[in-house]
């Protein structure tokens, strides 16, 4: 991919926009179609695009594999942790009124934001980790045969 100048320039411009769009979709999941899964996939696509056009080594400098593996587990922990926090404050598991006992409606909003954030983090981590696993293998078909 050393020769494709247009691809490299366009990718450098696009990756920032894609990450911004992913964050927009994540936090506007309450008001428009979106939410955790879609945002996670879009964020992962930004890193995968960078990894395809530049090399795998470069994207692993920005987003190292050990960080990806930690993120995969962190998302599930955030989700389950919200439930456990509700348990510890005396409500049922995953009862969002524990997050704001005086105004249950605001508690629901906070709970949904937290939970969707956990989901988004896990989905990003899993997609990027799967891509790293596939791309780290020696390809059987060389670049010129395509």
């Amino acid at each position: 991919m050393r020769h494709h100048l247009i691809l490299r320039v366009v990718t450098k411009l696009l990756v920032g926009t894609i990450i911004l769009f992913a964050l927009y979709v994540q936090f506007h999941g309450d008001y428009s179609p979106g939410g955790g899964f879609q945002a996670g996939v879009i964020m992962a696509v930004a890193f995968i695009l960078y990894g395809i056009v530049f090399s795998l080594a470069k994207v692993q400098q920005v987003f190292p594999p050990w960080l990806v593996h930690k993120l995969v587990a962190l998302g599930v922990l955030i989700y389950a942790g919200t439930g456990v926090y509700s348990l510890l404050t005396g409500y049922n598991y995953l009862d969002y009124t524990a997050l704001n006992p005086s105004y249950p409606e605001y508690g629901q909003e906070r709970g949904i934001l937290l939970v969707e954030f956990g989901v988004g983090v896990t989905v990003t981590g899993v997609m990027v980790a799967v891509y790293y696993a596939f791309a780290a293998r020696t390809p059987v078909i060389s670049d010129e045969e395509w």
Partner: protein
Amino acid sequence: MFQEFTWEFIVGHMNYWLFIVLMMTGLYVVVARGNLVKKLVGLNIFQVSVFMLYISVGKVTGGTAPIFPTDMKIDPDVIYSNPLPHVLILTAIVVGIATTSLALALIVRIREAYDTIEEAGILEIESAICREENRIHGEAMGGRG
């Protein structure tokens, strides 16, 4: 049974039949083709058509997407489509991508172990291994007897 096939009935059920045709095409690809990647694509087609069948059950004529206006002033005359199938299918799509990625990883490992991803080729290699093992096993039993 065929008295009830009025025009209204046919138009009302056309979507189900269309999605059944798509499902059967996907199923045919899974059953009839030998290449593992192609089987996976067929499975994907089958999956997506099942999703669309399910969601078409939840649509109401004259309805709109189940999202209220931002200021939450809900017009009581507006009909919303049923959001429950959407929730179920969202989960199903994500589970589908999880199984697809696992299947692709398995295909890569199979290629490394057997050097082919055609079903016929894999069965051939497996049966050759079985014959070899039976022969060795038979010789061991015969030798001891």
